[in-house]
């Protein structure tokens, strides 16, 4: 199929299956986008993993462990989609560990307190589910299909996070302070999360209908849904310019630091190096298990 005809097909809502013909650029963009999503699921468990052993109750420890297990499961499903597009999982992992491919900005930051754990599970997952829900309409159907299961699991991660935050907000002054500090730390990365506000039409991921909405649209949706939920708990958001224009319904805010975003996702975040190193060591140390199991199966 000609590239132009294909473009018109996906823009009209057409969907593509694994074995279908597709332009090289579409395939390359799909791999890049989906691989980064897989990387983010895999790297996204590391900030939370640090708190499994320090969870305040057994119930929280179990819930956090289950969430970590879910996210790794998402990475498995997503890398599988990338494999069908032509890039083997082993190469995805090579590229992730060597820094040739990227993962989401929010997973490059430290998890300082239990307050961070609550804020990550609540607000980082909330920001992520907005992007992921938009992927339910992705032009590449196998990716859209697995997103159904992923969104379903993410929605109870958000509840788990909100529950952690509510427990702290109804607790001691020290606990409330931990949450407030975490909001201060996470607000900038959260505002950067959906990317710079380029018009959807100029975004190649949107042109191919890999994404079904623009970056700014996603951020507006996040602000609309979650700013009221944050404020009603008596928490402060560290942006004096933040507010909603009641006439247009559009949120205005201080311009996020796009240089920081670029810097962080290219491997220069406060925890980028340590987390990639942990991933590398884990992969090496468990290699013998895979070898033994696969030898037995062969």
């Amino acid at each position, binding site marked *: 199929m000609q590239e132009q005809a294909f473009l018109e097909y996906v823009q009209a809502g057409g969907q593509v299956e694994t074995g279908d013909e597709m332009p090289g650029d579409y395939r390359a963009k799909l791999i890049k986008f989906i691989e980064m999503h897989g990387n983010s699921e895999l790297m996204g468990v590391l900030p939370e993993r640090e708190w499994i052993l320090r969870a305040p109750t057994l119930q929280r420890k179990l819930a956090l462990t289950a969430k970590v297990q879910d996210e790794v*499961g998402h990475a498995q499903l997503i890398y*599988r989609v990338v494999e069908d597009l032509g890039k083997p999982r082993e190469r995805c992992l090579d590229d992730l560990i060597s820094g040739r491919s990227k993962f989401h900005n929010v997973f490059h930051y430290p998890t300082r307190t239990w307050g961070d754990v609550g804020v990550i599970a609540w607000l980082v997952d909330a920001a992520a589910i907005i992007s992921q829900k938009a992927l339910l309409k992705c032009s590449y159907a196998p990716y859209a299909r697995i997103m159904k*299961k992923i969104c379903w699991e993410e929605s109870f991660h958000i509840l788990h996070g909100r529950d952690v935050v509510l427990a702290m907000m109804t607790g001691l002054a020290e606990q409330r302070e931990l949450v407030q500090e975490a909001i201060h730390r996470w607000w900038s990365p959260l505002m950067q999360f959906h990317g710079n506000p380029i018009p959807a039409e100029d975004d190649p991921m949107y042109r191919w209908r890999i994404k079904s909405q623009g970056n700014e649209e996603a951020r507006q949706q996040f602000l609309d849904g979650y700013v009221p939920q944050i404020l009603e708990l008596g928490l402060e958001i560290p942006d004096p310019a933040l507010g909603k224009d009641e006439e247009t319904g559009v949120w205005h805010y201080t311009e996020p630091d796009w240089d920081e975003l670029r810097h962080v996702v290219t491997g220069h975040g406060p925890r980028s190096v340590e987390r990639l190193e942990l991933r590398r060591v884990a992969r090496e140390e468990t290699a013998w298990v895979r070898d033994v199991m696969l030898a037995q199966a062969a």
Partner: protein
Amino acid sequence: MVWEVFRQERKGQAFQHAGSFEAPDQTFAETYAREFYGRRQESIALWIVPREHIETIGDFVDELGRNYHRVDGYSLKTKLKEAREQVAQRSG
């Protein structure tokens, strides 16, 4: 080996394609299927099939234009209008 997964969400519902996974043999395949598509009670049953055992048939050519066995083969609007007009003329 790549396996395709079809899952049933509730009793009585159709099995729907859910995704795929890679597993070297049947034992691994069963474990992975449970792990990826059933561990949160989101499915009540799974079908797993090696991809190479799935035969896709996708070319349905309608050489003879056999639209007489489909509803779109019957456009009654114009004919009905004509029939009604004739009835009106005859009685008028």
